C-alpha cells in the first residue's frame, strides 16, 4: 500500500446554517495534494475557496465527507498547519520579534530556542534590523513578510495562504509573490494558495484547481509547467514572461466563467 497523500478532500460538503436559512457552500469536493506540492485554488468571490482553508486549518468541520492530513481526519487546529491571512494581523502592541513569537508562545515552546528560530527567520526575510520595530513602522510588504516569519516560526508542514498578497499595491504584490513563493518552494513545504487572481495562481503554483460558483465544486485541475524555461521551474515573475503563460491564462479564464452582472 502506498503512503496516503499529504492532504485529501473526500466528498466534502459544507452547509452554513444561519437565522435566514441554509447555504450550500461546498459540494462533493474531492482532490488530493502530494507532499511538497504548491497548489493554487482559484474561483470567484463567494465560491467557498477560503472555506476550504478553514476546513484544513480545523477551524470548522465539514457537514459531510472528510478532510485528511497524512491520512488522519482533521478535527481541530494543528501546529503542523500554518495559516497566512489576507490581512497581516500583526499585533500593533507587539514588536516584530514579539509578533513572530506568538505561535511558539501559544504552543508553549522553549522560549530561547523559539527566539533563536524567530531571529533567524527575520534575518533571512530581510527584517533583521526591524525586529524591535512596531508593525506601524513597516511597509505593507514588510508586514506581510513578518506575518510569514510568524507562520514559519512554528515550522509547519503545510502552509495555507488565503489571498495573502491581495491587500498590497501591484508592484509589492508581484515582488512579494515571487519572494514568498520562492521561500516556500525552497523549504519543501506543502502549500495551498487561495486567490481570485489568475496570473498570480499560474505564476506561483504547480497545479491550479478551479472552483465553480456557489456551491463550490471542483471544475477543473491543471498542472502548470513551463517547459520553455528548462527543467527548473521559473520564479513567479519570470513565469509571467514564459511563452506558455497566455495559453494557461486563457484556459483558466474560460473555466472561471466570469459574468459581470
Amino acid at each position: 500500500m502506498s503512503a496516503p497523500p499529504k492532504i485529501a478532500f473526500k466528498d466534502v460538503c459544507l452547509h452554513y446554517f444561519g437565522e435566514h436559512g441554509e447555504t450550500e457552500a461546498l459540494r462533493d469536493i474531492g482532490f488530493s495534494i502530494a507532499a511538497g506540492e504548491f497548489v493554487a485554488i482559484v474561483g470567484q468571490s463567494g465560491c467557498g475557496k477560503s472555506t476550504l482553508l478553514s476546513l484544513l486549518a480545523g477551524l470548522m468541520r465539514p457537514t459531510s465527507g472528510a478532510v485528511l492530513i497524512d491520512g488522519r481526519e482533521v478535527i481541530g487546529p494543528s501546529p503542523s498547519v500554518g495559516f497566512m491571512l489576507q490581512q497581516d494581523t500583526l499585533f500593533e502592541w507587539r514588536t516584530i520579534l514579539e509578533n513572530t513569537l506568538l505561535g511558539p508562545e501559544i504552543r508553549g515552546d522553549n522560549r530561547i530556542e523559539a527566539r533563536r528560530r524567530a531571529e533567524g527567520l527575520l534575518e533571512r526575510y530581510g527584517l533583521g534590523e526591524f525586529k524591535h520595530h512596531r508593525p506601524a513602522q513597516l511597509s505593507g510588504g514588510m508586514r506581510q513578510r513578518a506575518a510569514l516569519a510568524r507562520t514559519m516560526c512554528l515550522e509547519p508542514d503545510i502552509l495555507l495562504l488565503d489571498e495573502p498578497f491581495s491587500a498590497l499595491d501591484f508592484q509589492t504584490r508581484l515582488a512579494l509573490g515571487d519572494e514568498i513563493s520562492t521561500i516556500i518552494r525552497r523549504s519543501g513545504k506543502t502549500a495551498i494558495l487561495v486567490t481570485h487572481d489568475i496570473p498570480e495562481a499560474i505564476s506561483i503554483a504547480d497545479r491550479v484547481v478551479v472552483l465553480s460558483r456557489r456551491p463550490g465544486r471542483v471544475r477543473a485541475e491543471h498542472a502548470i509547467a513551463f517547459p520553455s524555461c528548462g527543467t527548473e521551474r521559473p520564479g513567479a515573475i519570470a513565469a509571467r514572461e514564459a511563452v506558455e503563460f497566455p495559453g494557461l491564462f486563457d484556459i483558466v479564464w474560460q473555466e472561471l466563467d466570469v459574468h459581470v452582472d
Partner: protein
Amino acid sequence: MSTEAAVLAQPVSLAKAIASPRYLAWRRGQRREGFTIRAIQVLLVVVLLAAWELGARMHWMNPMLTSYPSAIWFGLRAMVLEGTLGSHLSVTLVEVSISFILAMALGTTLAVLLWLSPRAERVMDPFLVVANALPKVALVPIFYIWLGPELSIYGIAVAIAVFIVALMIFTGFRQTDPNKIKLVRTLGASRAQMLSKVVLPGSVPTLIAAMKANAALSLVGVIVGEFQSGKAGLGYLITYDSQIFQMDRVMVSVVLLGVISLAMYVAIQGLEALLMGRRK
C-alpha cells in the same frame, strides 16, 4: 524593497532637516493658534470670576445664595485653619479610590466572564440592561439599611459605576478584530489564551475609556453616599454647611471636588499616554 526599507528606517522628521520658509511659516501659524486658544480660555475664566464677584458685591444677585470668589477664598482659608478640611478631603479621596478600584476590578471580571461564556452573556443580557438602566441613587436608603453608614457609601459608589464599566469593557472585547481571533485560533489558542494574547491587550483603549467613566461615576456615588450617611467627607460637608446656610463653605467643597475630578482625569490621561506610547 531594500530602498523602501532604507527610507522607512529613517526617522520621519524629514521636514526638520530641510525646513522650507513656507513650512516654518505654517509652524508659526500653528503655534500662534495654540497660544490664542489658551489665552481665550484664561480670559473666559477671569471674566466669569470677575462677573461673579462684581455681581454679588453690587447685589445684582444675592451673595447669600450665590457666594462669590473672594468669599470662597476666605472660606477656604478659614476651613484650612480650623484644621478639619484635610481630614474631610482625605476621607473622600480614600472612599473614591477604593470605590474606583473595586468597580474597575468587578466590572472587568464581569466582562471577562461574559466573554468566556457566550451562553452566560445571552442569559445575563436583559438583567444587565435593567441593572444598568436602574437609577442607582434609589438604592441609597436600602444600602444604608443593609450595609450601615460606612459600607453603604462604597456600595452605592460601586453600584453606580460597575455596570457601565462592565458593559463598556465587554463591548470593547466584542469589537476585537475577528481576523486576529482567527489567527490565534489557527495557532491553536485556547479561549483563555485568546483573552490574554489578543482580547485584553487589544482592549487597552477601551479600558482607559472605562476608567474615565468610572472615575466620574465613583465620585458621584461617594458624594451621594456621604449625603445620606457620612460622618465625614466633602459630601457630608456640603450637606452640613448648606443646612446652616454657609454657601461660601459649600462652594469650597464643590471647588475641591472639581479639583479631585480633574486630578483623576489627568492621572488616567497620563496612564493612557504611557500605555499607548509604548505601541508607537
